[in-house]
């Protein structure tokens, strides 16, 4: 029983960074912008978060640092894509390459430093419930935050006027512009939100998931998050389900490796990547489903014609 609870708890920690990154990317994509720089923004969030916890010891500041680092990276992307109308795909790739390099440069003195990890917060009374209490109400602050973000973004997209405008901009920027909505400003904010969430995802990696800094520690999670958005057909609750599914696969292969199943460790480590390809194929093969759900203007540059 204890082993099962322990594995379920690790699934939650493995899923949380994916959840942050893919919710942020989903909002960005809903506004009609494809940002392939998630991996780079995550790494910057991770290294800045870890640097701040190392130098100040304050968890709040560290989380904020991760968030701002991701946002700063996203601002560069937004300036190029919205201001200079550069190719979204090329700029996103540049952001990832730049982020990998810059985070390695910034973090060169942080390698090998240990940190205990974010403290767990037990919610009074609720955490005393047997099994479920430990499973659901005894986490660090960022796990609670990720669930709140999902609830808020589902509410924002489907129940608010601002969410409706965001979707309109993503589905037809020309129509939205004609009605008088500030397309560029809305997209700018959506990109910044995506960056902030990617930064939080990175901060979670270096502050809680494996509390240390190593070069390139996101190991493709940013790309998996991008695939999760497609898998979830741009819906917040499905993003959450997808993130937990992938968290589960990651932890499952780690446990199988630890058990010493007669399969080489490298084959086990391939599992999350192969699973990503598999779900992408399963969802994408139904073209009409993608067409119905994907923002119609995704990836297209917008030139305001006054």
């Amino acid at each position, binding site marked *: 029983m204890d082993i099962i609870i322990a594995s379920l708890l690790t699934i939650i920690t493995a899923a949380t960074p994916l959840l942050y990154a893919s919710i942020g990317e989903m909002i960005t994509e809903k506004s009609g912008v494809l940002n392939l720089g998630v991996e780079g923004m995550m790494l910057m969030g991770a290294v800045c978060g870890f640097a701040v916890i190392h130098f100040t010891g304050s968890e709040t500041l560290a989380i904020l640092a991760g968030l701002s680092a991701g946002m700063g990276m996203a601002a560069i992307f937004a300036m190029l894509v919205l201001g200079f109308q550069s190719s979204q795909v090329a700029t996103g790739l540049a952001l990832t390459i730049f982020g990998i*390099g810059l985070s390695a440069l910034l973090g060169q003195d942080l390698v090998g430093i240990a940190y205990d990890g974010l403290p767990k917060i037990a919610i009074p009374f609720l955490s005393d419930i047997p099994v479920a209490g430990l499973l659901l109400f005894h986490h660090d602050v960022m796990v609670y935050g990720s669930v709140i973000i999902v609830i808020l973004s589902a509410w924002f997209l489907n129940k608010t006027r601002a969410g409706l405008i965001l979707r309109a901009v993503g589905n037809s920027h020309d129509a939205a512009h004609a009605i008088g909505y500030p397309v560029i400003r809305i997209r700018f904010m959506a990109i910044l939100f995506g960056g902030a969430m990617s930064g939080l995802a990175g901060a979670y990696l270096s502050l809680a998931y494996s509390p240390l800094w190593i070069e390139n520690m996101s190991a493709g999670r940013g790309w998996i998050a991008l695939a999760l958005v497609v898998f979830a057909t741009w819906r917040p609750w499905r993003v959450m389900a997808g993130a937990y599914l992938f968290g589960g696969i990651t932890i499952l292969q780690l446990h199988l490796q630890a058990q010493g199943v007669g399969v080489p460790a*490298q084959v086990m480590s391939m599992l999350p990547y192969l699973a990503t390809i598999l779900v992408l194929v399963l969802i994408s093969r139904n073209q009409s489903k993608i067409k119905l759900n994907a923002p119609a203007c995704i990836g297209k540059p917008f030139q305001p014609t006054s």
Partner: protein
Amino acid sequence: MVFVSPLIALVLTLLAGVVLFSVMGVNPQAALYAFFIEPLTSKYGWGELGVKATPLILIGVALSIGFRSGVWNIGAEGQLTLGAICGGGIALLFYDTEAFFVLPLMVVCGILGGMLWAAIPAWLRTSFNANEILTSLMLTYVATLLLSLLVHGPWRDPDGFNFPESRIFSDSATLPIILSGTRLHMGWVFALAFVAAAWVMLARTIIGFQVKVVGEAPAAARYAGFSVNKMIWFSLLLGGGAAGLAGLVEVSGPIGQLLPTVSPGYGFTAIIVAFVGRLHPVGVLFAGLLMALSYLGGESAQISMNLPLAVTGVFQGLLLFFLLGCDVLIQYRVVTRTLISKRAH
């Protein structure tokens, strides 16, 4: 005019480099010298430039053709790894055979290995509509793990004290050196030949014409009956084949054996090379040399000034940012509001 923006971008990158080095508390003049001049002060250095540029040019040329037709093969790094595995596998199979056919067979298998790895995203895209950016990238991680599995397990050198590396390739499995006193090898000739072939293909053949039309005017291409699926297969197989060749060239040239990592990210840097080279084979040739210099400079600055190797990645990313930003200034004219109202009168 389109070739002006890479030059402006380069100047801006150098300026950003001065700022970056000053912030890091390093003398910018000395650092830039170590980065961009010092590597080229010897014949050996020029040879190294060709060695590093070879994989970048091979992959960059092929990717630029794919990017022109709107096919985003981001997984060249994985295709490179598969080329190294397949070509290197042949070298290990014939490690005690000294024969003329070993090297050509390795080249063929390297290319086929890369093509095989690129065929997976092509098939998933054409049959299941799965985004090739994500599938080709995921396969890069799989390829790296596969190589790690092989050199840690079945292909480990039996006399290698358990280090994760293969046997050292025999002489007949190693690319001949073409410039004595350096490490410059036959692969450089492959790269130059590929640039020429790609140039002719784009300028003078039907398939080259189709590449341009599909990328620039998809509707016209559909109307003319050009198959988009054929273009996807062509672009990915070409990219995979070139990346596979690049991987083979690396292991049978400068590396000489299989290691857990056979490339410092050439497959990703080649994306920048393709863009900086303006998606044109000759442009890619120069861009490849420039990026090769950034790798050499990174190593030289690490040795002589104790700067971290990661500076290379920062420079490469900055260059692409500035390039993308400069393009708009080349394509559009900045017009102030007063100018507009003056013209209206």
